[in-house]
């Protein structure tokens, strides 16, 4: 059993292939998972992962009143618990505009953000509105310094990891999928009633467009159907 992986799990870390590649590789081994699981079960926890291929993390063996209260409180204090990450990641999305996925493993270059913000006064103003959220962000700092602290803030929270110190390249970690899961849960709970925010409708619209596109343009079966089906 890998003690480092166990310690990281007990420390509440998300072990993904980006941030902890060695431990993640080890946990892909079933024997290793069983050993760690037996250890965690002694503490009333178990090993689990986000989705089928996502990051590993420690979860309670059973969902009880304590866990339900924990989730309830975190959602009640969403602005404090998840708000900073949502706001800062969305800022990166807006700076990178078209080619951003914010998926695990994706690289985000600090100089790209710096360049985009310096060339766009709107982005610069947006960055300034985020200063109260950014840890150690300040008006007296340059844009580069504030952007650097924004990235460090996200890295401290575990959503990014510094991939190259010299070039200022950061990599999105697997923990971001936990944030997406929370947002999905909230979306499914329809906490936002405003019609313009209804993602589900947009998904449906996209899928309908997809089907129409396939049917009209190709006249063949939709490629979203099982790929094993022979196209004759």
């Amino acid at each position, binding site marked *: 059993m890998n003690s480092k992986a166990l310690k990281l799990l007990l420390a509440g870390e998300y072990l993904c292939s980006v941030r902890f590649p060695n431990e993640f590789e080890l946990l892909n081994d079933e024997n290793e998972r069983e050993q760690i699981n037996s250890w965690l079960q002694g503490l009333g926890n178990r090993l689990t992962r986000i989705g089928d291929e996502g990051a590993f993390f420690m979860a309670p063996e059973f969902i*009880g009143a304590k866990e339900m209260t924990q989730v309830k409180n975190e*959602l009640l204090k969403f602005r404090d618990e998840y708000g900073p990450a949502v706001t800062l990641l969305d800022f990166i999305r807006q700076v990178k505009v078209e080619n951003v996925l914010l*998926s695990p493993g994706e690289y985000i270059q600090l100089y790209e953000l710096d360049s985009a913000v310096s060339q766009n006064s709107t982005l610069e103003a947006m960055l300034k509105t985020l200063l109260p959220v950014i840890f150690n962000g300040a008006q007296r700092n340059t844009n580069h310094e504030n952007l650097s602290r924004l990235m460090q803030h996200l890295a401290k929270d575990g959503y990014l990891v510094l991939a190259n110190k010299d070039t200022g390249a950061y990599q999105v970690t697997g923990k971001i999928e936990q944030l997406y899961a929370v947002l999905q849960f909230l979306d499914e709970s329809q906490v936002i009633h405003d019609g313009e925010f209804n993602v589900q409708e947009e998904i449906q619209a996209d899928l309908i467009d997809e089907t129409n596109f396939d049917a009209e343009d190709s006249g063949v079966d939709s490629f979203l159907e099982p790929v094993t089906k022979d196209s004759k």
Partner: protein
Amino acid sequence: MSEKGIQVQRLLTALAKHGDLVAEAFEGTISGGDKHRNSAIEALMHINAIKPYEEDRYTLNPRLREFIADHLSSYQAFQALRQVSAVMRQAREQWNELRRLKSTRATRDIYKLESALDESVVEIAYSVDNNIALLHSLISTQYGNVEDFGSKLRQNRYYANQINVFLRDVSAIDALVELIGDEATGAGLPHIRHMVVRRLGSRRLQWSASIKDAQFSISKRLFDAQLMEIRIKRLSHFALWLSKNKTSSGWDLNIKESVPLVLIRPEPVLLRPQPDVLDSDPEMVKSLISAIERMPPKPCTKKPTKDLGPQMIIEDDEDETIDALDPHQIALQQLIDQSRNTTKPISLLAWKNSQELLREISSQAWLMYACTQLQGSGLKLNYIGELDLDPFPVNEFFHDIEVCSVEVR
């Protein structure tokens, strides 16, 4: 070398001579400049390597571009997969003609038709291989020929449809191979059957597998991209909500036991490593020693003494405090003084009863106190008690003590 071979050689020599311009034209259009450049453009125009595009602008021959792009695996955005149906029709016609010539025994033309059919078959195989290479290249680079995410998605959809058409073409190739194979056996041209089966039929399964792999990757990637797009939308919507509702903190939701496990963030369990110091395993001992060596030195608790310089003690007799004596101490002192001044024994009880100071003290306490105090004063003490009949006395019984000034040696 044949005349045709010499011409090919000259053509390639000319291309090689002006390779820099060909490379430039591959990236975009080229225009004239100095005399040397103009003559090079003219030479390339002469061999049809470049074509006029606009005023003083030239573009690379599309066929040459295609050849170079194939070699470099460099593909244009939305580049269509090569359609093999036209070449298959051509091969079919060539085969029909070949059979006709065979029946009329026109030997010379048969060789020409066989060569043409062979080239058609090679072209079909090449087109399929090229299409697969193109798909692999685009998938592996995540449609790296465009930057825009929307364009990537649209390319993904475009190629998903192209693949369906491509799969149909591969099925048609299989049918063609079967047809030619059967007819060639009947027509007495077994080497033709052998040729199409070897070049096309035997590779058909491999092609189908490769295409379906690509199709799966594209579908999965499209799904992932679609999913990611939804995630990004969600992220932006919640960020917008946070900025619009600055006074709201969150939502009071009814959380049930069926809540997704991923929502429960792990709470850190604090660990404090505790080595077993009693473990006699050499490795453990060695580790312990090395751990102790790594520890920082123990901070010195002794405070450094300050040098206060020369000091002088001032004694003030007037201020000397004299502890006030208790009544029994005063009485005892008086008893000692009185005993030393007389030779007669003094009964402690009698003396106590005569003293005003000792009125508050019981006789028992006085006797116990006085006898212990007088033992160290050099006076003789006589314990007055009843005769003890016990042969092995444990306690000495007395009811009074007499004190006299005779010193005990």
